[in-house]
């Protein structure tokens, strides 16, 4: 039997081993690999090949696959999954690997690097759709679309999130209040089921599979190709409004989002002292409408007005000088990154995803990231954010909140076990709570305790979460209830008899 190493060796010559008896621990690996090799699948088992996938964007969960395969075709993935069912070997699919709870980390078994499937198949300018292999990064898709004067609708503010991975969990952008989550952009999918059948699905063809796979956390199949809506590319103009009250900023976010006053809208904070409401527009016409109809209804300040208020605030509270200096330094470092001259044309930002994603990684990224979140209905949102903010203050000196609205086009089956809360109508609201961990050292216990404290708010208020898989899966039954989870477990067992596909994510 091949024992399962769970991470890089902590001590030279003493490999860390999987000791959880409930987990698969190497049975059948040898015959599985022989079977795959016989069928022409290249399985890499070297340390260098495996160790580069040992963690995810969160950097907290650590695991080592027994072997890695670079995805090359749907047929190859079908071969792998059929063999995995036969030999009972777990298979983990990974796109950009930007999960934070270990969802894309393989704790033994086979890891399939989906970004090997990255070709854009076809662009239809008439119907405004693109057909692409699903392992492609959103940014690579944008590079191809831009040459045709097109852009995707919405995607996470991470250049290296993959299309397939995003469709499997949702995908939220600052224009999700206009377009909905990324999963709702999908028109059709090619899916390899856990038993190795390649099927096409859409709202009209195999609709049950379509609804299970979208927002399905990789439980019901591997998305190998996707047809998605696209739009003509436009540069956008940005406006920032500053608040010192979370509640007021959230109310204005909801106003702008609900009334469709902007094409992009979101909140990004420095602690809860400097709350920034970002609004942006795809056209000058939309910008003019906003300035004439909505601007005066917003209670946020411009940069200089807010700076003056903050100066007075901290002048009266000299014992908070360190906080004031932090906010000043942070703002001075951040703002130039959001307005690099070579990404600005005539006052408009021409590559917003590049600018935002780079800034996100530069200022929020790190070796470890924990980003617990709450996803709620409109009525619960302010309270959920305020309670989550209080938890952040308790656990960390510095943190950021990121809030957006997510448009819903009616209730869909795909939302059942997802980040979309049951009681949301028309719009769901999400807030991420992200502590600044760079340069600081926290124990895993501290980080887990923080996440639990945020998620406990969700249980108390009956909300949903974006990241409830992996290390947070203990919350699934408590948040969604036994009846719904058992229903999905039965569906999973039927679709994946050996329970080999993306184990440890949900089930």
């Amino acid at each position, binding site marked *: 039997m091949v024992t399962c190493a769970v991470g890089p060796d902590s001590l030279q010559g003493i490999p860390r081993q999987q000791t959880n008896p409930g987990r698969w621990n190497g049975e059948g690996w040898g015959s599985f690999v022989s079977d795959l090799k016989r069928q022409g699948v290249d399985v890499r088992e070297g340390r*260098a090949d495996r160790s*580069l996938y040992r963690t995810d964007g969160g950097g907290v969960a650590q695991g080592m696959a027994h072997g890695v395969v670079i995805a090359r075709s749907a047929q190859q993935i079908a071969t792998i999954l059929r063999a995995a069912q036969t030999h009972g070997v777990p298979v983990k699919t990974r796109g950009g690997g930007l999960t934070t709870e270990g969802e894309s980390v393989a704790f033994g078994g086979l890891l399939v690097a989906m970004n090997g499937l990255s070709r854009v198949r076809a662009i239809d300018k008439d119907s405004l759709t693109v057909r692409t292999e699903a392992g492609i990064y959103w*940014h690579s898709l944008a590079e191809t679309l*831009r040459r045709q004067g097109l852009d995707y609708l919405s995607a996470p503010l991470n250049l290296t999130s993959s299309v397939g991975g995003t469709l499997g969990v949702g995908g939220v952008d600052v224009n999700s209040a206009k377009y909905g989550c990324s999963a709702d952009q999908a028109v059709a999918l090619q899916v390899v089921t856990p038993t190795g059948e390649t099927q096409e699905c859409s709202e009209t063809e195999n609709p049950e599979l379509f609804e299970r796979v979208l927002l399905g956390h990789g439980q019901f199949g591997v998305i190998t190709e996707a047809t998605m809506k696209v739009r003509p590319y436009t540069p956008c103009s940005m406006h920032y409004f500053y608040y010192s009250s979370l509640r007021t900023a959230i109310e204005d976010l909801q106003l702008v989002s609900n009334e469709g006053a902007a094409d992009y809208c979101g909140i990004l904070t420095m602690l809860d002292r400097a709350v920034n409401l970002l609004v942006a527009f795809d056209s000058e016409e939309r910008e003019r409408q906003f300035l004439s109809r909505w601007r005066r209804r917003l209670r946020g300040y411009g940069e200089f007005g807010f700076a003056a208020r903050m100066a007075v605030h901290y002048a009266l509270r000299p014992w908070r000088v360190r906080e004031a200096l932090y906010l000043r330094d942070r703002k001075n470092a951040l703002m130039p990154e959001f307005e690099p001259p070579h990404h600005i044309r005539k006052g408009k930002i021409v590559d917003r995803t590049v600018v935002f994603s780079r800034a996100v990684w530069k200022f929020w990224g790190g070796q470890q990231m924990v980003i617990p979140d709450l996803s709620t209905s409109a009525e619960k949102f302010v309270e959920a954010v305020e309670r989550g903010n209080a938890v952040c203050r308790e656990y960390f000196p510095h943190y950021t909140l990121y809030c957006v609205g997510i448009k819903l086009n009616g209730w869909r089956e795909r939302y059942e076990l997802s980040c979309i809360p049951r009681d949301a109508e028309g719009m769901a609201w999400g807030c991420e709570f992200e502590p600044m961990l760079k340069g600081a050292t926290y124990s895993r216990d501290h980080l887990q305790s923080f996440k639990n404290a945020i998620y406990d708010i969700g249980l108390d208020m009956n909300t949903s979460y974006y990241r409830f898989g992996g290390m947070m899966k203990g919350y699934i039954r408590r948040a969604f209830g036994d009846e719904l989870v058992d229903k999905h477990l039965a569906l999973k067992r039927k679709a994946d008899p050996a329970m080999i596909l993306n184990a440890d994510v949900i089930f």
Partner: protein
Amino acid sequence: MKDYRACTGCGICVLPCPVWQQTRDLSLTLAGRALALQGGATAGELRESLEACVTCGACEPVCPEEIDTVGMTLELRKAAPLFLPELHAKNGQKGSFLPGDSLRKHRLCDVVLERLTVSPVDGSDIAAAIEAGRPIAPDRLTQFLESLTGTELIADDGILHRPLRSWGFTVIGLGEALLRRRPALHATDLYVIETRGYHADFPRLVRFYDELRQRVGCEMNLDLQRAAIATGAASLQHRTGRGQVEAAEQARWILEGRDVKRVVVECVDDIEPFAQITDVPVVHLAEVTS
């Protein structure tokens, strides 16, 4: 600058990487090397990855952690050096212009010398040794440095830009030197920047070329991050027939979806891959500079 330990695995560096563009294999990229090293891999285990890299340097300016990506790769190569062809430098010359190995042998070298009115110095053996991860004999290095004259060097091979700066010289690329002479460029051109020099001085040159692009209105081999897409043709591996990156494929990707009437390149190595895949004229910048 930081080393591989600072890598967060964001993967942004793979986006402009020619090796990634063609293989979609993370293990052959800078991110793959950094993450594998974090996981305990040795330079020897990364030999294939180190051989694949064309050292275009596009990974460096886009890295949010500001890791010395090129330095890291070149340092690792010292433990797994590339094949190095025998190069005999012409000694005894003194000057401020360093034509790359390809340009030195090309008919256009005389055209460039005429346009720039500079004296050439042969540093192709130094450039190749740096790129391959091979040691440079101290005597040869001293001799080379003593042969450099003038207040500003012009180095055609961008691999030399960083080391020359670290040795205290002011250095610009051949493209920048010729662009100062206002060559005849048109809005219908595809202008192909030499990638190594560009990425080695990115904060300054991204503005320089952005201004050129706005002034002329031409297309460039830039991606949405403003990294320059390399053909890989200038790499040592390509020049010695050991490259994994198909230069013509890269040229095809650069041209995809772009309607241009002419391709103007800064680096002579880029002429051939473009000429292979397009019917429009492919010319060197020196040929459109008077």
